[in-house]
C-alpha cells in the first residue's frame, strides 16, 4: 500500500517542484493584498479581544490558505484526468484506491503547508509574530487534511474543468469569507452563527487563532475536523472506485 501512495505523492511533488517558482509568488499575492487592504489600511485601529486586527487576520488567512491550497489539488487531479489522461496510467497500475487517495491528499497537504510558510513570512514583514506551537500545526494539519480529502472526492465527481470551477465558487469561496477568517463569527446573527459553526473552516480558523495566541484551542474543534476529514477521505476512496466506468 505504502509504495503506491509514495509513487502518487512522488509524482505530485515532482510537478510541484517544477512549478514552485511560479507558485510561491501566487501564494503570496492574495494574502499580501488582504494584509495591506484589511489589516494595514482598514483595520489599523481595530482591536478584537485585546489583539490587533493584524494578529486576528493572519491566523484567519492561514486557515483560509491551508484550505484553498489543499483544495487546489483537485485542479491538479483534473488536469491529470481530463487533459493529460494520467489518471488512466495510475488506474492501470497496482495501486489501490486508498493508496491513490492518500497520495493525493498528502500532496494537497504539502501544498497547504508550503503556502502557510509564505504567509508566516509575510506576517513577520508586518511585524506579527505568532505562537506556532503544536496545537497550531495540528489545526493546520487537520484543516488541510479535510480539504485535500474533499478535493480528491470532488475531483472524481466532476465531469469537466468548468464543473470544478463551479464547485470552487459555491463551496470554497463562501467558506473562505464566512468561516471566521476576516471577522469574528460572533458578529453574525445567532441563527447565522449556528450555520457557520457547521463549516469545518470555522473550527480551523478558531483553533489556529487560539493556538497562535498561545492558548489551548477547544478539543471539540479538533474532533470536528478529524471526523470530517475522515468522512471526506472515505467518500473520496468510494468516488475513485466509482470513477471507473
Amino acid at each position, binding site marked *: 500500500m505504502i*509504495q*503506491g501512495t*509514495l*509513487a*502518487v505523492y*512522488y*509524482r505530485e511533488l*515532482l*510537478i510541484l517542484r*517544477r*512549478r514552485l517558482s511560479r507558485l510561491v509568488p501566487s501564494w503570496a499575492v492574495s494574502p499580501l493584498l488582504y494584509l495591506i487592504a484589511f489589516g494595514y489600511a482598514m483595520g489599523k485601529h481595530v482591536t478584537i479581544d485585546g489583539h490587533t486586527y493584524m494578529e486576528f487576520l493572519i491566523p484567519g488567512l492561514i486557515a483560509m490558505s491551508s484550505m484553498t491550497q489543499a483544495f487546489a489539488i483537485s485542479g491538479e487531479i483534473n488536469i*491529470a484526468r481530463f487533459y*493529460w*489522461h*494520467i489518471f*488512466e*496510467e*495510475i*488506474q*492501470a*497500475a*497496482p*495501486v489501490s484506491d486508498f493508496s491513490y487517495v492518500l497520495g493525493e491528499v498528502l500532496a494537497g497537504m504539502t501544498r497547504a503547508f508550503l503556502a502557510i510558510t509564505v504567509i508566516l513570512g509575510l506576517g513577520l514583514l508586518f511585524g506579527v509574530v505568532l505562537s506556532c506551537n503544536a496545537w497550531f500545526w495540528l489545526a493546520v494539519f487537520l484543516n488541510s487534511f479535510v480539504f485535500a480529502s474533499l478535493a480528491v472526492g470532488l475531483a472524481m465527481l466532476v465531469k469537466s474543468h468548468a464543473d470544478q470551477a463551479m464547485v470552487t465558487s459555491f463551496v470554497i469561496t463562501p467558506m473562505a469569507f464566512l468561516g471566521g477568517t476576516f471577522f469574528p463569527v460572533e458578529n453574525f446573527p445567532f441563527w447565522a452563527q449556528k450555520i457557520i459553526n457547521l463549516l469545518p473552516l470555522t473550527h480551523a480558523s478558531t483553533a489556529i487563532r487560539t493556538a497562535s495566541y498561545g492558548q489551548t484551542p477547544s478539543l471539540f474543534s479538533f474532533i470536528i475536523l478529524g471526523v470530517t476529514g475522515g468522512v471526506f477521505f472515505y467518500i473520496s476512496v468510494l468516488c475513485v472506485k466509482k470513477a*471507473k*466506468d
Partner: protein
Amino acid sequence: MIKIENLCKTYKTIQALNDVNLQVNKGELFAFLGPNGAGKTTTIRILTGLTRLSSGRVMLNGFNVENPGIESRRQCGLVPQSINLDQELSVFENLNIHGRLFRMNKQKRIRKIQELLDYVEMGDRKKTLVKNLSGGMKRRLMIARALLHSPAILFLDEPTVGLDAGMRRKIWALIKKTQQHGITIFLTTHYIEEAEFLADRVAFLDRGNIVVVDSPGNLINSQGTWALDRLMEDDMETIYFNDRKEANNYIAIRKDSFTLRRVNLEDSFLALTGKKVK
C-alpha cells in the same frame, strides 16, 4: 494467454460489446480491426482493468481481470490511444513514476529505464521534458513505459494514430521487435495496412460483435487476389478476381475507367460487414 468468454459491456442503453469470445496465444500479435465506435477501445479498457465489464469473464495469463491483484496488473502493459504522459516532467521522471507505481526497486528501475530508452532509440533524451518531444517520440516513450515493468502482454490502442507514414513504420518495427522478445501483443487499429503488416491474426469488430477471426493472409485470399474499383455516381463498385489476367480481360471489354489493385483486408472487412473500416 488472453481468454475472453461471453464478454458484454453496456453503457446505459448502448451495447458496446456483445458476447465477445476470443483467445490470444502466448507470443502472438493479435489485432482488433474495426471502424471508430466498434468497441475496440472498450475491449482494451476492460482487458487492462480500466473499465468494468457488464458480464462475461476475462483471464489474462491465468488472472481474472475482475480481481485486480498486484500480479494481475503486472501482466499488462498499456499504451493508450491518447498521449498520457506528464508533459511538464522529463522522460526519465515519467518512466521513474511508472516504475514506482509498479513497485520496482530503485536499482532495477534505473537499469531498465536506461535499457528501454536505448531500445526505443531515446537514450540521449533522458532529461528532455516530454512537452519538447515530437509526436513519434512520445509514442515510443509510451511503449518504453508500458514495457518497463516487464509485462507478459502489451496492449496497444491505436498506437500510430496521428503519426506520419515514416514514423508509423518506425513504430511498426518497434512493435515487431517487441513481439520477437516473446511478449504477447494485443493491438487495436483502424489502419488496414497496420493490421496486415503486423498481425498474426486479426479479429474484425463491428458494432460490438466479432465478425471473424483469422490470419490476414486467409482473410485477404478469401476475396481473391486482384480487385477492380469502379467509381460510380455516389459509391464505389469493387469486383474481385483470382488472377491479374482475368481482371485485365474484364477491363478490356468495358469502356468504364477502373483502378486495378491487390485485394487487402479492407475488402474482406467490406465483404463481411458491408462497410468500410475507416
